[in-house]
């Protein structure tokens, strides 16, 4: 029953939050309009979402976001040091193939976005059958260590969220 009215409850909640943040101050009229949007938009876009991705553990997601934010700050300082002080001759850019254990498309997208947002690494491509990501590193003297780090630090956590 609730599935028929709200095919994507999380999307509906997100729409309400985004709309209220856009309005930037609380008003009951805005909340009513946000509720209407939260009902209509998921209903109109339902054909593009054949099934909802199953995401587990709001606490795990919050912990993952905190970890990523912390890593972005750390990696920014690291990359700033490389840009300012490492001469081009000592720079070791590398392509890395990261094999994936994740199978859910949403999970792979989240991992690719995380890798790109963390300075020093950029996701460039996915393999034809989706079993690996191609990552470019700004400075990686030891490419295998970077791949292992991505798998243990991000992918293992995403595996538990997108199960």
């Amino acid at each position: 029953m609730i599935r028929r009215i709200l095919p994507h409850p999380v999307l509906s909640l997100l729409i309400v939050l985004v709309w209220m943040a856009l309005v930037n101050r609380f008003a009951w009229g805005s909340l009513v309009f946000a509720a209407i949007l939260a009902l209509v938009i998921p209903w109109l876009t339902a054909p593009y979402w054949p099934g909802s991705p199953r995401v587990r553990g709001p606490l795990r997601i919050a912990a993952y976001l905190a970890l990523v934010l912390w890593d972005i700050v750390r990696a920014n300082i690291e990359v700033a040091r490389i840009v300012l002080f490492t001469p081009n001759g000592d720079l070791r850019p590398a392509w890395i193939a990261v094999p994936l254990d994740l199978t859910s498309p949403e999970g792979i997208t989240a991992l690719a976005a995380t890798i790109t947002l963390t300075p020093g690494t950029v996701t460039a491509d996915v393999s034809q059958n989706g079993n690996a990501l191609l990552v470019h590193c700004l400075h990686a003297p030891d490419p295998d260590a970077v791949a292992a780090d991505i798998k243990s630090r991000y992918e293992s956590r995403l595996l538990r969220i997108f199960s």
Partner: protein
Amino acid sequence: MTTLVQLLVAAMLVIGGGFALVGAWALVRLPDAMTRLHGPTKAATLGVGAVLIASMLYFWGVRGVPSWHELLITLFLFVTAPVTGFFLAKANMHLSWTASEIPPPPGNGNDWATFGDEPGPGAGPLPARKPGGHGRP
């Protein structure tokens, strides 16, 4: 109290500006297009992030009105920045790299999507997902 907040706002603005400057300098000095791609990702994360924190602090601490637009900017940036990075990397792979210069993905006859013409072995059509189902089987 207000002076303290103003100091914090100023500090965050300087930090954000500094990281944006380093990102721009990275565009100038790094050797090729792929490494230059790493510059803007810095400016887009910590540079913009610090300026947004400064803006939130200012509206909260100095003006006394909470402001939520900064959180939205963060959200939209985090959703869109990887897509542009992905497009730039893909265009660059087409223009100046060949498949032999890049380590192949695991699996026989498997290639990166940029270089291959068809879905790889074992890919098949995407399975129809049941409502509430997930991912590939």
